[in-house]
Each structure stands twice: as C-alpha cells, then as structure tokens.
C-alpha cells in the first residue's frame, strides 16, 4: 500500500521527533538556533543559576541586531566606538560575555558579517532546507523561505533549547496559501504578503503552519520568498514554509556555513525529497490571484488593515463586525486619517527602508530604481536606508546604490533592526507619519505615537520622492 501523501511540514516534523508523549506533545529536535541580544540575557542567566551548559553550542549562532545603533560603529582607526545608551551597551556586552562563556559562535557588532539575524542566517548558509530553526524573535518565520521549519520562541524556550537542543511542541494544523498568476507591473513580494494578510486576517493563521505554493511563489527569487515567509506571523502563523527547489540550492551553494563536498551531495539528495507529495492534504486552503494584486499598503494599526494604493481610507461603518468597527475607529484616530481620503493624498514625513522583511540587495535595487535621478521631497524629515547586513551594504556600495540614495538625500546607515522597532535611537516622533518597509504597524511600534504605513521598498522610495503615499506605477511608467 502506498504511504499517505505528506506535506513539507509533516515530513520535517516527522524527522525531528525525539519522543512522542501519550498526550500527543512531542519532543522536537532543533537543528539551528539563532540568538540575539534582547531575548537571550535572561535565558543565559537561568542556565548559569542552574549550573547547566549549552548542549550544542556548535548548532547555535549569535549576532546583535535589535539594539545596535545604525550610526558608524568604528572610528577612523577601526576601533569600536562606545554605545551612548548604557542599557543597550549592557545588553550587547551581555551577549558578548554569554557567547564567550558558553562557547557559542558570535558575530560582533563591528564584524563585516553582522546584520539582522534573519538576514544573516540565510546569507551565511546557517539556514538550510529541512532543518528546524528557532530564534527568540517572531520573524524567524522568514527562514521558511528556504524550506526550514522556522519559528519564533520566547526566552524560556530559548533557555530550553540552549540546555536541551529540543522543544516540547504540539503539531500545528496546516494551511496552504496558493498564489497563482503573474504579478502586475511594479507589484512585488511585499504586496503579495500584504494582500495575503489582508485576506486571511491578523489571526487567520493562528494554530497553523502556512505553506506558500503556486507559480507566483515559485517564480520569486529567494529574497522575495524571504519577504513573504517573514510576515507569516503577521497573519498569526508561527511558521511559513516554501518548498526548496533548484533556486534554493543555487542560493545556498558555497555559502560559508552551508555543507560542501560530499556533505552537500547528501544534503541535496535529502532536500529533493522534501516538497509536499502530490495529493497531500492541508487543513485549510486559500487561493490568491496574483494578477489582481496592486501595490498595497496599510491604513490602520493592524497588519490586516490592507488596501491598494488606488483605494481610499475605509469607513469604519463599512465593517460588518462591531468589534472591527470599533477597532477601525480607534485606528483612524491614532493614524490621524478620515474615512474616504484617497490613500495617495496622505503626506508623509519619514521613510524607512530596512528590516528583516525588506533590507536585502533586491530590495535596495528596487528602491534605487525609483530614486535614481530624483530627490527626496522637501517635506520629508528623515529618509533612512538600513541594509540588512554588512554584506548587503557592501554589495550595494559595489553597485553604486549608496551614491544614488545619498545624492537623493537619504541617510545610508549601518545594519540592524533600527526603525522597525525603535529600540535604538532611530524613531519616528509622535504624530508623524512613516512609509516603512518593515512588518508591523502597531501603535507605538516605530516610537511612541508614530504612525506607520507598511509598503514595499519601491513604494517607500516613491513616498520619499513625492512626500506622500504614491503609486509607484505612476513614477515608473515613463522609465
């Protein structure tokens, strides 16, 4: 009898069960653990107190990103500059000390490979298909773009993984999000994921692991897939997977931490067995027509508040659900918007191009293509470009993208999370509005009172040069 067709998720799960308890909870082995400075100090401290070692330091990689300043980090002689905020400095020092004490690979803030943990993992080949990968950060979902079962965990779980290299988990339900058709002019993977979240809602994926399928996803670059998988958590799903294919393998080959030689060949043979079997069943399926997606953005304070750039600010009364009506009214009040306004008439004061969603080389290229030969509009107070890693930054500089941005009036920064969560000095002041390529438009996310509109890099660039939320297609039509 043929065995039951399995999904990618079920295959990875099955290969990582150390032990199944009677109540169905499984002890799952973790192949890769990424650590950053904000969610790890309390975990290391707990290990120290209990006198426990890190079980597999060799499967763990640490890099500071959330709290590092994005202004220059070294002086002319290459010496590290002090960090102004004493609390940030303390967290960075704690990570340095903890990784040293427990023997964990560590990329320092001034190392050329430093960057946002979710940019660094794939870039170094630390992230591999078919592995289980965790990090104390909800956007760990991003690594699912390479076919890794990757999800965010809390600090107690960070401690659990450090001590045991396992987690106790119950199997999630599966959801297929199938995206088919070709994307319209200037429509990007960011618009695709915003459209998906707009459709399923901010809690639509709760309890599920999403698998993104369909020709639109297959046609995306690895960078584009990372953008899509990254925001799975904004739809409530702890993880988002994309089946590994030849593009994935070509992307990984030769990366410093990827297998090589015979190990590579064995890995490849295994990876090819991973894609979901024909006829595999999902608990829920959603279909998205890619050709119907326009450049998209958010109007409110939940990532599900998505409209097309050609739309208007919705009227809260138009929502059927009373709690949604109430939430929409509050959102509009916070955002300083009135129902019926054309999205394109909304002026902005800040532009942020960065974050683990959109700070890779393709994102910077897409933004530069819009900016080239133009200037940042006068009303813009700050336009920041924060590359996802030192390697992305160098690549962009080699391509001359930094000149395009700087000449137009952007600030060209050092890699880190920056204005995505406003933990370092990069913040949007209260009451001011930002077109941002990040992933969360929550109240206060980019600073207390900050108003965020989530957009693609090309749309953020269009906002920078026009001083308002603009349809990038109008700017690019003549090019």
């Amino acid at each position, binding site marked *: 009898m043929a065995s039951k067709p399995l999904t990618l998720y079920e295959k990875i799960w099955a290969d990582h069960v150390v032990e199944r308890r009677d109540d169905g909870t499984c002890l799952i082995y973790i192949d890769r653990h990424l650590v950053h400075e904000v969610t790890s100090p309390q975990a290391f401290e707990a290990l120290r107190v209990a006198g426990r070692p890190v079980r597999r330091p060799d499967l763990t990689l640490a890099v500071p990103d959330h709290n590092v300043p994005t202004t220059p980090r070294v002086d002319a002689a290459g010496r590290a500059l002090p960090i102004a905020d004493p609390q940030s400095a303390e967290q960075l020092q704690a990570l340095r000390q903890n990784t040293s004490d427990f023997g964990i690979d*560590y990329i320092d803030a001034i190392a050329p490979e430093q960057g946002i943990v979710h940019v660094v993992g794939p870039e170094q080949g630390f992230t*591999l298909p078919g592995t289980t990968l965790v990090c104390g950060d909800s956007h760990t979902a991003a690594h699912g773009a390479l076919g890794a079962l990757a999800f965010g965990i*809390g600090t107690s779980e960070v401690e659990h993984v450090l001590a045991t290299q396992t987690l106790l988990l119950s199997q999630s339900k599966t959801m297929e999000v199938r995206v088919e058709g070709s994307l319209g002019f200037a429509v990007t993977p960011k618009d695709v994921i915003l459209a998906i979240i707009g459709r399923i809602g901010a809690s639509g994926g*709760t309890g599920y692991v999403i698998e993104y399928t369909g020709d639109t996803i297959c046609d995306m670059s690895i960078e584009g897939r990372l953008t899509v998988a990254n925001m799975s958590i904004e739809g409530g799903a702890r993880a988002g997977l994309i089946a590994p294919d030849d593009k994935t393998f070509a992307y990984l080959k030769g990366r410093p931490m990827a297998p090589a030689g015979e190990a590579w060949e064995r890995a490849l043979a295994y990876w090819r067995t991973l894609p979901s079997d024909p006829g595999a069943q999902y608990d829920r399926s959603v279909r998205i027509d890619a050709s119907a997606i326009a450049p998209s953005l958010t109007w409110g304070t939940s990532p599900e508040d998505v409209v097309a750039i050609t739309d208007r600010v919705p009227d809260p009364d138009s929502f059927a659900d009373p709690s*949604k009506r109430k939430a929409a009214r509050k959102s509009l009040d916070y955002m300083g918007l009135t129902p019926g306004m054309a999205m394109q008439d909304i002026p902005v004061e800040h532009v942020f191009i960065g974050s683990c969603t959109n700070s890779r080389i393709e994102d910077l290229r897409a933004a530069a293509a819009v900016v080239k030969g133009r200037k940042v509009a006068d009303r813009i107070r700050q336009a920041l470009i924060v590359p996802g890693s030192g390697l992305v930054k160098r690549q962009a500089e080699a391509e001359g993208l930094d000149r395009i941005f700087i000449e137009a009036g952007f600030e060209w920064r050092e890699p880190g999370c920056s204005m995505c969560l406003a933990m370092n000095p990069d913040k949007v002041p209260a009451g001011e509005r930002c077109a941002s390529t990040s992933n969360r438009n929550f*109240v206060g996310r980019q600073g207390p009172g900050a108003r965020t509109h989530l957009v693609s890099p090309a749309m953020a660039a269009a906002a920078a040069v026009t001083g308002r939320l603009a349809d990038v297609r109008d700017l690019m039509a003549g090019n």
Partner: protein
Amino acid sequence: MKPVRQVAGTAYPWGAKNVDTDVIIPAHWLKTVLRSGLAKGAFETVRAEPGNVFDDPRYAGSPILIAGENFGCGSSREHAAWALADMGVAAVIAPSFSDIFSSNAFKNGIVPVVLPQEAVDRLIEVAESNEITVDLETMTVTTPFQDRFTFDLDPFRRQCLLEGLDEVGLTLSKDTAISKYESGVASARPWIKVGAGNESTFVHGAGRT
C-alpha cells in the same frame, strides 16, 4: 515555578481585540537583562489615556485580565508575560491567543483561558463589580451568579501548571533519548553539522570550546 490550581479575584474588564505585545510592553522597556520590574512599562500607551481600566482603583492589582480575540499577537518577547506576571496577573481570559504568547504565558505560570466571545462578554459584565474564579482542577471559570464556563488546556501544560514543573529539568531527564536521536542524525544527515565538509567556516569572537 509555583503550582497554580486556582486564580480568583477581581478582573480587568477590558475586552480589547488584537492586543499586540508592543501594547503589553513597548520595545523601549526591553533593554533589560532582568525578568522583573516590567510592570512599570506594562500597557504604557493604554495608561496614557484618562479613565483607562488599568488605573481604575476598582481593579488595581487584579489577578485576572479579560481581553478580546488574538491577545498577545506580534513579537515573541516573553517580556509581555513577565510584565503581566509583575503586575500580578495570573490568568488572561480571551476568545483566542497568539501561539507564541500562550506558550510564554504557561512558562510563567499565567493561565491563558480560551472562552467563546459570548462567555467573554458575560464575564466582562460581571467583572465590572464582582470577582471571578478560574479553576484548573475543574477547568471552569465561575462567577458569584452561577455562571459556569468550561475551558480546555493542553494536558501537558495543565499538568506543568498544576504541579509547578520545571520544563527544562523535565526534558534534561530525557538525555538518553536526545543523545540517541543525535547519533542517528550524525549518520543519516551528517550535513546538519554547521559548515559540514567546509573547512573555511568562519568562527568569530568566542569560537567553540
């Protein structure tokens, strides 16, 4: 962890939907290397509004919080659970929770109680002026008015709460099974070793011991 059998007392009758972790504890409070002291930053943006439920003396120090669907969505920061615990909250009642938040809540002895919206609405009404009891033995939420709502919990998590078990300690007792799994992987999937077959793998800072 202390065992949790029952959480009883006043409750914040809040009901807000899609409460994200940036609302529970804003990012600038995360620059700490400690677990304690986060109550000061809890619900900072909500508390900036006059007449908010958290500064209402009737509910000061309540062990229960009642919220709307998708409570704790957003980031994985366990600081959200630590902040609630620091406020003295030991149970949150809502129609649904984000997966990461509910896992963080359990690990800090906070019971995430899932009840249908109608039950939540009723409890908000009751909590305006009465106490509520969440009982883990009977798996019920009750009020002084004969309301009785039953809820479900993952059996393993319920056991951990009832017995106050240390999950890391429990898993460490499975050391043999983990070692056996690891040796199986070493032969079946040797490429799992970071940089397998690739001697040029960089090692920064500390390196491996």
